[in-house]
């Protein structure tokens, strides 16, 4: 918390007529005491409205807004409404810390991180320094919820290392010997590959080729042909999704139609991009979904979002579900804590267990503890889906993860 | 007898088929004004550029104060004591008269990389040298340039030419090239240049005065070299020159004037 000295600086600062930008933590703490219970509880959301992560970040953001609206409609938390602050870092991790501290300055008691994974990783230290909990609703970079500096950083979805485990198992079952990987050059994907690929290689799969393309690439024929020359058993596309992944898939479909293709969560969870693919270009593609047909909560959420978002809402994806669940967890924690004090909220989150999310299969749960900041209990938050007719058709026959 | 400040031997320069300068020899001595005259396109400016080092001659040699200078880049020419003005004044119009003139004074100290770095450090250290300003003021006054903290945009063509003379004088040259100093100047400009030349001679250096206006040149020069079609067709005292048959033939029927700037 701030020293009175700092508080005085702030009033000066305000006098300098720039305070519109920053009501400092000291200021807001003072206000919080002064005000009665009706004052809103502030939650910050770091998102990406312009960068490579915007394709999924905005899906999540929509669901978060709906969830907040719903909570407030039902009388809010502790009888107080939730106020949502939003900042976009354009998927640039070096901007994330400043924006996170800005939201904290403006009174945010919890931060939802749903820009790129790299932004979440970059924000860990800031959250720790200012002792405000942050929840990565969709980011899957394992480092977010793992030491060091993870005291105030939590993550909701299965980490990338789980995806690695599943694909490793799947490839073994298929008898895959050689793998080729094509990625975009975003820092998020760089971090993810660093955690994902070793897991797969550990399972005895040799990576015969790895190609990168810049996010604004106009053509990836050269890269794909370089993969083709190594003629691998399978190709893994690891990207943020969006137009570039479609370009990858189109070109792979043209050049390596016979080779089985796998992807991360991205493309399967971005219905808007399916239409951009050439006819049948996505067919056979296997990706990691997190929404199972047997989860009743998924069905309820689908109805809610369809009602609230209208035509903007194409199909329920992990991104919406996890955004929605993140808000529920925050609500739960604040109610447990009984006040909107960041440190107490953080402790409250650490005591949430057996939470039933609206993603993953029916019996899938999320639990946190002081030593477990990655919420998922087991692998069945993840479902491998396969495309047909440029749409996710059915769970993949060859392999599915079981909950342990 | 002292060696000439400038000694050109059989200098030639061709542009494609055009022989702009054709085996010309020239000498200039200290305290002497050599008039270089000829109609437009006679090769005056090209010859000046060869001497000034803006261009290299195809053949022939140039010596300044005994040191070879042939085809030297204009910097070296300058370091060997040649300073010049330009037919189309080369002045930074967006700056003040004083600033443009100071260049002539400080440039010598920035002739080498080491010198540049020294000046760089001095500049950052904020070392100010009032001596510079005084020197500029003195020369400006001598040339009759007033209010030298004006922007050069406010100057007349004549004043710009005076500024160039001033800048050249501040280089303390042994030889000064005045390239068409009267072109486009009004009466004031002309008289300004006249007194400027007197000022230059005080410093004991030689002058090459290039102009197509024979009468003005004749009234100022000790000696006149007449160029035509790139070749030197006459070299002698102004009176002889004006009387010479070459002069008649060269200027016979040719326009004697105004278009000076068009060369």
């Amino acid at each position, binding site marked *: 918390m701030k020293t009175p000295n700092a508080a005085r600086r702030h009033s000066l600062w305000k006098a300098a007529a720039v305070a519109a930008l920053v009501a400092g933590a000291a200021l807001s703490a003072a206000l919080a005491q002064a005000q009665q219970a009706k004052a809103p509880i502030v939650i910050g959301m770091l998102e990406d409205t312009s960068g490579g992560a915007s394709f999924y970040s905005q899906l999540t953001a929509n669901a978060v807004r709906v969830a907040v609206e719903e909570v407030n409609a039902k009388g809010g938390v502790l009888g107080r409404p939730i106020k949502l602050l939003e900042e976009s870092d354009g998927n640039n991790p070096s901007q994330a810390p400043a924006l996170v501290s800005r939201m904290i300055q403006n009174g945010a008691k919890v931060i939802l991180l749903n820009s790129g994974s790299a932004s979440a990783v970059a924000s860990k230290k800031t959250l720790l320094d200012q002792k405000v909990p942050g929840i990565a609703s969709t980011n899957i970079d394992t480092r977010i919820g793992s030491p060091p500096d993870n005291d105030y950083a939590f993550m909701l979805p299965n980490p990338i290392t789980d995806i690695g485990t599943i694909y490793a198992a799947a490839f073994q079952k298929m008898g895959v010997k050689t793998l080729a990987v094509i990625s975009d050059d975003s820092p998020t994907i760089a971090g993810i590959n660093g955690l994902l690929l070793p897991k797969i290689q550990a399972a005895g799969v040799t990576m015969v080729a790895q190609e990168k393309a810049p996010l604004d690439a106009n053509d990836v024929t050269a890269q794909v042909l370089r993969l083709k020359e190594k003629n691998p058993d399978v190709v893994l596309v690891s990207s943020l999704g969006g137009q570039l992944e479609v370009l990858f898939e189109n070109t792979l479909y043209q050049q390596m139609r016979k080779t089985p293709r796998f992807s991360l969560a991205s493309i399967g969870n971005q219905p808007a991009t399916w239409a951009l693919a050439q006819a049948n270009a996505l067919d056979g593609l296997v990706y990691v979904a997190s929404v199972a047909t047997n989860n009743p909560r998924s069905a309820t959420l689908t109805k809610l979002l369809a009602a609230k978002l209208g035509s903007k809402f194409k199909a329920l994806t992990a991104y919406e579900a996890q955004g929605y669940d993140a808000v529920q967890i925050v609500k739960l924690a604040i109610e447990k804590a009984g006040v909107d004090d960041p440190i107490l909220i953080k402790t409250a989150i650490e005591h949430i267990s057996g939470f039933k999310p609206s993603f993953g299969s029916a019996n899938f749960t999320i639990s946190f503890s002081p030593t477990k900041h990655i919420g998922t209990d087991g692998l069945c938050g993840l479902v491998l889906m396969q495309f047909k007719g440029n749409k996710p058709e059915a769970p993949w026959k060859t392999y599915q993860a079981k909950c342990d | 007898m002292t060696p000439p400040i400038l000694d050109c031997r059989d200098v030639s320069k061709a542009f494609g088929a055009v022989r702009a300068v054709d085996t010309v020899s020239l000498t200039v001595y200290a305290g002497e004004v050599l008039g270089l005259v000829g109609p437009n396109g006679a090769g005056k400016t090209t010859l000046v550029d060869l001497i000034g080092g803006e261009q290299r001659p195809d053949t022939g040699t140039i010596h300044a104060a005994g040191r070879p200078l042939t085809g030297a880049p204009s910097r070296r020419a300058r370091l060997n004591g040649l300073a010049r003005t330009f037919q189309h004044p080369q002045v930074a119009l967006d700056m003040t008269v004083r600033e443009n003139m100071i260049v002539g004074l400080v440039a010598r100290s920035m002739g080498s990389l080491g010198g540049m770095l020294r000046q760089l450090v001095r500049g950052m250290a904020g070392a100010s040298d009032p001596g510079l300003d005084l020197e500029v003021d003195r020369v400006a006054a001598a040339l009759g340039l007033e209010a030298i903290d004006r922007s050069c945009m406010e100057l007349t063509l004549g004043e710009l030419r005076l500024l*160039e003379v001033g800048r050249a004088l501040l280089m303390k040259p042994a030889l000064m090239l005045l390239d068409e100093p009267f072109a486009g100047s009004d009466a004031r400009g002309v008289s300004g240049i006249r007194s400027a030349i007197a000022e230059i001679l005080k410093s004991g250096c030689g002058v090459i005065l290039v102009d197509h206006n024979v009468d003005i040149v004749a009234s100022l020069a000790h000696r006149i070299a007449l160029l035509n079609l790139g070749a030197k067709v006459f070299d002698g005292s102004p009176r002889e020159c004006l009387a010479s048959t070459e002069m008649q033939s060269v200027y016979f029927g040719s326009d004697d004037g105004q278009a000076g700037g068009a060369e």
Partner: protein
Amino acid sequence: MTRRSSGLLEATLTLAIAVAAIFLVSGNPYLEAVALLTATYAFISLGMYLPFIMGGALSMAYNAYLGLGAYAMALVATRTTWDLAWAVPIGALLAAAVAVVLGMATRRLSGFYLAAVTLLFGIAFSTWLVDAEALTGGSAGIQSLRAPSLDGQPVGNSVLVAITILAVWLVGLLLSRLRASPFGIVVRTQRRAAIAVESAGVRVSTLSLVTLAVGAMVAALGGSMFAVVNHAVLPESFVVELVFLTMFMPLLGGQDRPWGAILGAVLVVTFTFQLTFFKSTGSLFFSLAVLLVLVAAPRGILGYLLLGWNRLLGRTGGDSGMRGPR
């Protein structure tokens, strides 16, 4: 008022502003971050001031020089046990060397051709940052730099930000002096009258290499401070788009003084980062303001402030600095 005393006034006035800025931001993590961003922009913009605004050569590879400073700091912090202060001269010299080589490769070019090639170099550099993983950590960058330490004690960010702000002030002051000095005068003259400067004995090509090297060093200094305060570097931070923001800062702020570049940086950050009203439209607003200034008010904001100040003192443009560039 003599030039010397006005110089003293300039120094003290600007220092006062810098100190005030430090006082306002320190202790507030967000404002410190904003101040750091402003300072970083200011460093690039100041780096461009000498070769571009004064010298008239639009060399645009400044994202590379910034990056060299930053990665020098990151590598020293993560791969050596040296005092981090060493990273500053290393980065600066590296940047200067690159600037000189690029300057030599492009010495025949000017105007559009120079701009195009230097832009390409900037792009190639950021590609290289992502490509050379062994050295630069690729697109994941270099994380968790150790904090600099003063006799055993780690130096906090507030202090580092304060140092950064003071560094900006110092560079601004040095450049402001340089501008009015003989060196500055020759640099500004060769922009319009290169032939005259050449024939006065200065090798213009060498002179422009010197200015490019100095500019690169300034930008690199900014990069080093940026890296050490963020405790991390990422290739994203050094994309060529940065240069489009920074090259216009002196035009908006005013070209007559380096302070204009800093003023421009403050304005840009205020528009794009702080004023919530401008959030989405900040850069648009800035670019339109720049166009307006270019077309209608070439002196830029500071230029007109200084002009007014002189009118106030009843001074006619005695100080060359007061004159508009064109």
